[in-house]
C-alpha cells in the first residue's frame, strides 16, 4: 500500500522568496573559465536574491554546510546552486536543504559546468554570458517552486529475473537464499545460457558444464525460485516496487507432469532439423531435449518443423503428447527486476572476405566449442565440416566483428576473444600435439586474474604460433582446405598459409532483440555507441538503470568474461535486495493534478496518458489523475486546452518565468563585456 502525505499544491500561502545563490568553482572546471566572484556579484542583482556565496566544491561537507547554516539562520527560504548538472548532485543538495530544515523541493540547480564551462572552455565572455543566463533562469524558477512531499510506496519482496544464463542463475540464487521470491524466466527451453555451450573455461581450464550444471540444478530445486523456461515477458506495467508483469509460456505440446523423459519420441520422430544448441552442426528431431544436462529436463515439440504425423503421440508410453497445447499467460507482481539476457555472437557472414557460410571449413568460435565439447556433435573429436577429417592445421582469426571501423562490425573490443582462442588452441594441442595451430591477432588482451600467466604458459609450452597481423581474406583451396592471407607485421612480410580449418573468433554483440527488451522494460539501449543497454552511470552505477527498480547484469550491458558476469549478477542481486529489504521506496512527486474548477470535461487528456493514470469522473464531469500511477511526464499538462492541469515542480508558473528571463532585456551588443 502507499503512504503519502497531503497534496500540498492546493496550499497557496507561502512566504515571499528569499533566495540564496551558491556558486561552485568545482575546482578549475568552472572557476578556471569564468570569474566566480563576479558571478556572485551578478547574482546579488537578481530579484529576490538575498545572498550569494561561492565555494570551491559546493558538494563537499563544507559547501553543504554553508547552505544548511544559512537556512537555519533564517536568512533564506529558497536555494539555488550553480554548479554541475542536476543529474549529478541534485539529490545531494536537496538533502542538504532538508537537513537545514527547508523543504527539499525548494531547490534548483543551475548547470554551469556540463552545459557551460565544459563546452565553451576558451570563450570566456561567452561562457560568462551563458552562466549568467542559467543562474538567472534558476533564480526565476526557484522563486515559483512550491514545497512538496515525497511519495512512499511499498516494495514487493519479489524479483523477476529475465534470462537464466550464468548471470541470471547467480542473481536468482543469491536473492532466493536471502528469502525473496524469485521468478526466473528464459526464452529457451533450458537454463544455462551460453555457458552450457562452452567446453572449458579460461584460465583454469575448468569444464564449463561441470561448474554450471550444479547451479542449474540448484536453481530448479530452490523453493523460492519459480522457474519459467520457454517463456517470454510480453508486457510490463507499474512502477518500482510494484511491477505488473505478464509472461507468456510457450506450449511444449507435451504434458510435463506425465512425461518421464524416456526419449522414445526423439528416437522415432521422422523429422530432422537444425540443432540450435549445436549451432547448426548437427541435426535434431522436431521433438527434442535441448541437451543431455538440460534443466528443466523437459522435452519440447518444435511446431515450426513438426509435421504432425502423430507417431510420437501414438507411441509415447505415458501418452504425454498434446498437439492442442496452448500458450499460457501468467501475471505476476514483483518489486524489482533484473535483466540478464546476455549476448549474441557476431554473425560472421557480414564479413564477406572471411567466407563464413560460403567456405565449409570456416567455422566460428562457438561452433568450435561445440566440437571440442564431449557432448557436442562429434563427441569431443574435432572434425572439419567438409569431410569430417580431424584437422592437422587450424588457424584462429581474431577480432572478427570487433575493433571494426568499416561499418561491418562493432568498434569495441569484445574482451574475451583473445583468451578463448588461446584456450581453444591449447585444448586442441593437448589432444593433438603434432598439429599446427596458429592465432592471427592484433593485440593479445590478457587482462584478468591469471590470464597473462595462462597465455604465457600456452605460448611457451604448447607450440602454438601467435602471428601479429589481422587476416585480410580467406580463400577456398581445392579439397576443402582454406588459404589464409595476412601480413606478419612483426616480420613485415605477407603470409599465406593453407590449413585444414579456420576458426573465426567472433565478437560479442547485443542480442538481435535488444530493442524489444529496451522497449518492454523502459530502459535505454544505447543508439549510437555499442548498442548494449545503458547503465545509470558507467563508473559508479554499473548494474543500475535509469528506470528505478530495474537492474542489469552480465553481457546485456557489455561484453565480459565469466568472473565479471558473476560479479555483476551478485551486484545486481545486492542492489535489488537493498531496495526490497527496506520494504518501501520514495518516489519523487513530479505528478500532475487536475484543477477541477478549470476542467471543461473535454477528455483530451485521458487518451494521452501513456500510463492510464487519468480517469473521467462521470459524476463531477471532470478528469482525475491517480498520483501514484502518474509518472510526471507532463504531456497532459502541455495539451490541456483549458490549462486545467498543473504539474508539481514543472508547471507553467515555474517554466514560463525561466523562458521569460532567459533572454536579457538589453540588446545583444551591450551584453558583450570586455573582461
Amino acid at each position, binding site marked *: 500500500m502507499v503512504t503519502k502525505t497531503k497534496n500540498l499544491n492546493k496550499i497557496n500561502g507561502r512566504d515571499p522568496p528569499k533566495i540564496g545563490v551558491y556558486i561552485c568553482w568545482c575546482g578549475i572546471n568552472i572557476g578556471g573559465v569564468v570569474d566566480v566572484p563576479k558571478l556572485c556579484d551578478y547574482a546579488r542583482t537578481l530579484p529576490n536574491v538575498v545572498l550569494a556565496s561561492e565555494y570551491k566544491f559546493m558538494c563537499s561537507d563544507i559547501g553543504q554546510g554553508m547552505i544548511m547554516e544559512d537556512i537555519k539562520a533564517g536568512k533564506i527560504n529558497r536555494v539555488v546552486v550553480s554548479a554541475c548538472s542536476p543529474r549529478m548532485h541534485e539529490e545531494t543538495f536537496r538533502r542538504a536543504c532538508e537537513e537545514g530544515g527547508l523543504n527539499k523541493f525548494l531547490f534548483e540547480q543551475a548547470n554551469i559546468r556540463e552545459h557551460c564551462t565544459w563546452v565553451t572552455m576558451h570563450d570566456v565572455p561567452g561562457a560568462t554570458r551563458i552562466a549568467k543566463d542559467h543562474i538567472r533562469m534558476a533564480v526565476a524558477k526557484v522563486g515559483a517552486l512550491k514545497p512538496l512531499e515525497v511519495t512512499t510506496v511499498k516494495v514487493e519482496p519479489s524479483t523477476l529475473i529475465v534470462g537464466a544464463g550464468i548471470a541470471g542463475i547467480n542473481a536468482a540464487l543469491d536473492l532466493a537464499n536471502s528469502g525473496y521470491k524469485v521468478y526466473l524466466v528464459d526464452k529457451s527451453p533450458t537454463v544455462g545460457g551460453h555457458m552450457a555451450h562452452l567446453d572449458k573455461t579460461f584460465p583454469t581450464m575448468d569444464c564449463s558444464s561441470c561448474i554450471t550444471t550444479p547451479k542449474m540444478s540448484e536453481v530448479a530445486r530452490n523453493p523460492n525460485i519459480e522457474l519459467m523456461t520457454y517463456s517470454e515477458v510480453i508486457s510490463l506495467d507499474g512502477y518500482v516496487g510494484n511491477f505488473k508483469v505478464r509472461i507468456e509460456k510457450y506450449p511444449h505440446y507435451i504434458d510435463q507432469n506425465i512425461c518421464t523423459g524416456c526419449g522414445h519420441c526423439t528416437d522415432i520422430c521422422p523429422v530432422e532439423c537444425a540443432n540450435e544448441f549445436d549451432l547448426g552442426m548437427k541435426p535434431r528431431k522436431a521433438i527434442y531435449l535441448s541437451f543431455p544436462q538440460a534443466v528443466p529436463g523437459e522435452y519440447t515439440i518444435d511446431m515450426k518443423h513438426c509435421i504432425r504425423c502423430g507417431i510420437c503421440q501414438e507411441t509415447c508410453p505415458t501418452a504425454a503428447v498434446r498437439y492442442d497445447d496452448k500458450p499460457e499467460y501468467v501475471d505476476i507482481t514483483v518489486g524489482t527486476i533484473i535483466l540478464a539476457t546476455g549476448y549474441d555472437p557476431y554473425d560472421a557472414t557480414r*564479413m*564477406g*572476405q572471411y*567466407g563464413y557460410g560460403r567456405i565449409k571449413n570456416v567455422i566460428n568460435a562457438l561452433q568450435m566449442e561445440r566440437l571440442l565439447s564431449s557432448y557436442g556433435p562429434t563427441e569431443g573429436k574435432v572434425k572439419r565440416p567438409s569431410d569430417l577429417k580431424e584437422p592437422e592445421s587450424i588457424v584462429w582469426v581474431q577480432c572478427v566483428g570487433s575493433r571494426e571501423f568499416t561499418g561491418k562490425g562493432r568498434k569495441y573490443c569484445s574482451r574475451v576473444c583473445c583468451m578463448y582462442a588461446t584456450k581453444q588452441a591449447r585444448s586442441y594441442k593437448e589432444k593433438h600435439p603434432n598439429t599446427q595451430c596458429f592465432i592471427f591477432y592484433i593485440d593479445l588482451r590478457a587482462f584478468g586474474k591469471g590470464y597473462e600467466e595462462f597465455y604465457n604458459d600456452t605460448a611457451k609450452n604448447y607450440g602454438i604460433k601467435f602471428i601479429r597481423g589481422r587476416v585480410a581474406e580467406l580463400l577456398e*583451396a581445392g579439397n576443402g582446405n582454406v588459404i589464409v592471407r595476412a601480413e606478419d607485421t612483426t616480420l613485415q612480410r605477407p603470409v599465406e598459409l593453407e590449413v585444414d580449418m579456420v576458426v573465426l573468433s567472433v565478437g560479442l554483440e547485443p542480442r538481435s532483440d535488444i530493442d524489444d527488451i529496451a522497449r518492454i522494460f523502459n530502459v535505454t539501449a544505447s543508439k549510437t555507441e555499442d548498442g548494449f543497454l545503458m547503465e545509470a552511470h558507467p563508473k559508479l552505477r554499473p548494474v543500475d538503470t535509469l528506470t528505478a527498480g530495474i537492474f542489469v547484469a552480465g553481457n546485456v550491458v557489455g561484453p565480459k568474461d565469466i568472473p565479471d558476469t558473476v560479479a555483476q549478477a551478485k551486484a545486481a542481486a545486492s542492489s535489488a535486495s537493498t531496495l526490497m529489504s527496506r520494504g518501501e521506496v520514495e518516489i519523487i512527486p513530479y505528478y500532475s493534478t487536475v484543477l477541477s474548477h478549470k476542467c471543461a470535461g473535454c477528455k483530451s487528456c485521458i487518451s494521452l496518458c501513456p500510463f492510464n493514470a487519468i480517469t473521467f469522473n462521470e459524476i463531477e464531469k471532470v478528469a482525475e489523475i491517480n498520483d501514484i500511477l502518474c509518472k510526471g511526464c507532463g504531456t497532459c499538462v502541455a495539451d490541456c486546452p483549458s490549462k486545467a492541469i498543473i504539474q508539481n515542480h514543472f508547471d507553467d508558473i515555474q517554466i514560463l518565468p525561466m523562458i521569460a528571463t532567459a533572454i536579457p532585456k538589453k540588446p545583444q551588443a551591450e551584453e558583450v563585456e570586455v573582461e
Partner: protein
Amino acid sequence: MSNDDLKFALFLGCVIPNRYPYIERATRAVFDKFKIQLVDMKGASCCPAPGVFRGFDIDTWLVIGARNITIAEELGLDIALMCNGCYGSLLEVNHTLKYDKEKRRMVNEHLAKIGREYKGTVEIRHVVDIMYNDIGPEKIRNKTKYGRKKPLNLKLAIHYGCHLTKPSEIRPWAKESENPTFFDELMEISGCKSLNYKDKFMCCGAGGGVRGAFKEISLDYTREKLENISTANADAIITSCPFCHLQFDLGQVEVNNIFKDKISAPFNIPVLYFTQLIGLAMGMTPEELGLIRSPDLKGVPPFTPVKPIITKIGETA
C-alpha cells in the same frame, strides 16, 4: 521500361578508339539487337584516368571529368561507357560533385571559362550495369538460346577487374561487394559456364599507372592471373574493361616473352570483351565482331589468337 526507351550517350574513353576499336563495334552491334540507342559524345576527352590523374591532383581530375559529363548533360542523356576505368572516374566525379558544394563551386568556376556548367542531371552507367539491370540476364538468355545451331558451351574465366565493383557503396551491386556474381550470371548464356578460379577478383596489373611505370611488375600480376585461369582450364577470358583486355591480350604475348623461364608453357587463352561473347551467342560471325585480323596488319588486335575458340565453337548459324 521497355527496350525502346533506352538511349544513352556513349562515352568512348581512350583505349577503345585508339587501340581496341572492335570493343565499340561489338557493343554497338549487340546493343542494336536489343534496341538500345547509343549517341556519340562530340568533344569527349580522356575520362581522365582514375589512377594517374586522380593520384596527381584531385581538382584537375574533377574538372576534366565534369567537362565530359556536361557533354552528356547537354544531350540530356545518361552516359553509357565500356571501360572500368572510365566508370571509376566518371561515376565518382559525378557522385562527388552532386554532394560536395565546395568542389562543385570550384569546378563550375573553371568550366565557366569555357562556357560550360556541371548541373548534376545525368547518371553514369557501365554497359555491364545496363545489360544486367536494364535488360536482365533472363532476356539475354532468351535472345541467345537459339542464336546458333549449336550453343557455345564454353568455359569462361570472368575477370571483373577493380573499378567495376569498388568502392562498393555507390555502385549498383553494393550488397555483394565481397563476392559478386552478377557478371557471372550475365555470361551464363548459350551453354557457357563461368569458372571459379583462384584469386578471381585480383587486379590484372594494368591500372593505377602501374603498366606505364612498372611494366614488369604489372605483367607479373598478369602472369599470376593467367596461371590461375589456365589451371582452371578456361576456354576464354571475359573482360568488361579495355585496359584489362589489353593487359590480358597484348600482355599475354609479353608475359610469354618476359617470363618464359618462369612459366611451364606459353599461355594461349583467347580474350573476349563480354559483348563479343554475347554477339557470338546471338549468332554473329567472328568477323562482324572484329575477332578475325588480317595477317598483313601489324599492331592490330587481337594479339593472342582467338582461333582456338573459333575452332571449338564451329559454325555459327
